[in-house]
């Protein structure tokens, strides 16, 4: 196996373009190196991004919203004053990933591109209506985050593409947002991860709009559209929240693995969706913690 460290984005894209399926991008390595050691992936060329310091920027402006370079570490997101100020739910989500050790090196872009079941950022970013930039020598395309996750550990990123940036639009910032994670040990991936962002109407009880992202439950993270539909434009109440949570549980496609059975995941999705929605409704994400 060859190891290369391109010094610029252009060089990185050319390297990826030349190597096609044989090349594999190495970001923080916290998922990829494990897979490499287990022999699950055998790339001919490992393309490290660690010299691309431009990809570690975190920026905010009122028009563009929050922009995170793909090589931003989870620890940097968790501790960033900008993220904490404008999108505390994302900072909190990052703080729940594995351990400090993993967060020191693990990156947001790497996390998204692996799409491992139980990853925390995907449901949070789905609820935040984020987009990602995918660059290649052919150009740059912007993709809605939910479209990035195409299947079990699969994404829409093509072999010659590099995920360079994650964007959270201004409309998603500053509202009520909650991410709840259910796992056996706190360093584990989520058995159930539910992210909710909602806007209340002027009356304080009607749900003007909401987005729900779910991770950990099914083969791939997804937007819980049916549950959203039940609540959008309706008065929030214990009953309506319970009804939406029940629909989400009925419609999910849960997996069984070493962390939990499909049946357990379905039950816990209902519980955690109810708690996350209630937390969003009360405007108190922390209080909704189990």
């Amino acid at each position: 196996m060859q190891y290369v460290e391109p010094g610029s984005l252009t060089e990185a894209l050319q390297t990826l373009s030349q190597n096609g399926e044989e090349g594999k991008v190495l970001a923080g390595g916290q998922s990829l190196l494990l897979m490499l050691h287990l022999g699950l992936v055998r790339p001919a060329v490992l393309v490290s991004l660690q010299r691309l310091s431009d990809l570690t920027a975190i920026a905010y402006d009122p028009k563009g919203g929050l922009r995170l370079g793909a090589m931003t570490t989870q620890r940097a997101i968790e501790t960033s004053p900008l993220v904490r100020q404008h999108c505390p739910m994302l900072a909190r989500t990052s703080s729940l990933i594995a351990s400090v050790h993993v967060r020191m090196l693990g990156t947001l872009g790497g996390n998204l591109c692996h799409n491992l079941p139980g990853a925390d950022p995907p449901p949070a970013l789905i609820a935040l209506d984020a987009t990602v930039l995918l660059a290649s020598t052919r150009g740059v395309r912007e993709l809605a985050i939910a479209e990035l996750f195409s299947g079990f550990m699969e994404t829409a990123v093509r072999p010659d593409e590099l995920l360079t940036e994650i964007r959270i639009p201004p409309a998603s910032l500053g509202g009520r947002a909650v991410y709840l994670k259910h796992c056996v040990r706190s360093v584990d991936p989520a058995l159930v991860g539910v992210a909710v962002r909602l806007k209340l109407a002027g009356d304080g009880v009607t749900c003007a709009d909401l987005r729900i992202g779910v991770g950990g439950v099914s083969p791939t993270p997804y937007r819980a559209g049916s549950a959203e539909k039940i609540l959008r434009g309706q008065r929030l109440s214990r009953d309506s929240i319970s009804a939406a949570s029940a629909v989400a549980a009925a419609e999910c496609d849960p997996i069984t693995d070493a962390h939990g059975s499909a049946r357990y995941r379905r039950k816990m999705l209902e519980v955690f969706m109810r708690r996350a929605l209630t937390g969003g409704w009360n405007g108190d994400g922390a209080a909704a913690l189990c």
Partner: protein
Amino acid sequence: MKYPVTLGVNGESFELLVEAHKPLLHVLRDDLNLTGARRGCESGYCGACTVLLDRQPVHSCSVLAVAAVGKEITTIEGLAVNRQLHPLQEAFVADGAIQCGYCSPGFILTAKALLDGEPQPDSSTVREWLKGNICRCTGYAKIVSAVLNAAGKVRAGEGR
């Protein structure tokens, strides 16, 4: 493919030829004989292989040696100075936070990174940082109290 690399470990510089896929853990243990970095789960959970990379704790099983060029690597062997133990090492001994000792280097290095950045952590912060290290002998109460006691000593100027 093998690459010539220069690794900075515990203040010394080492020139080595390493394969691209080799984790830093294996290079430290097999090539540099720094066996304080322990082989545990080798999947980024147990923390036995913890070293400091630019003063931050990482699992050395999950870092490529070729990617550690230009970074400051600290292993447990680099903590004592002139045979004088680091206050954290002394506290682990004094408080009985060691049994078999397999996990101790990882715990001590993680705690060092914490105390270097935050000299007065509370117990929940200590626990949060130590989540990436697993001990199968003592439980965690003595380990947490050793870290808090060491923090007190470092503050009082008894240690470095």
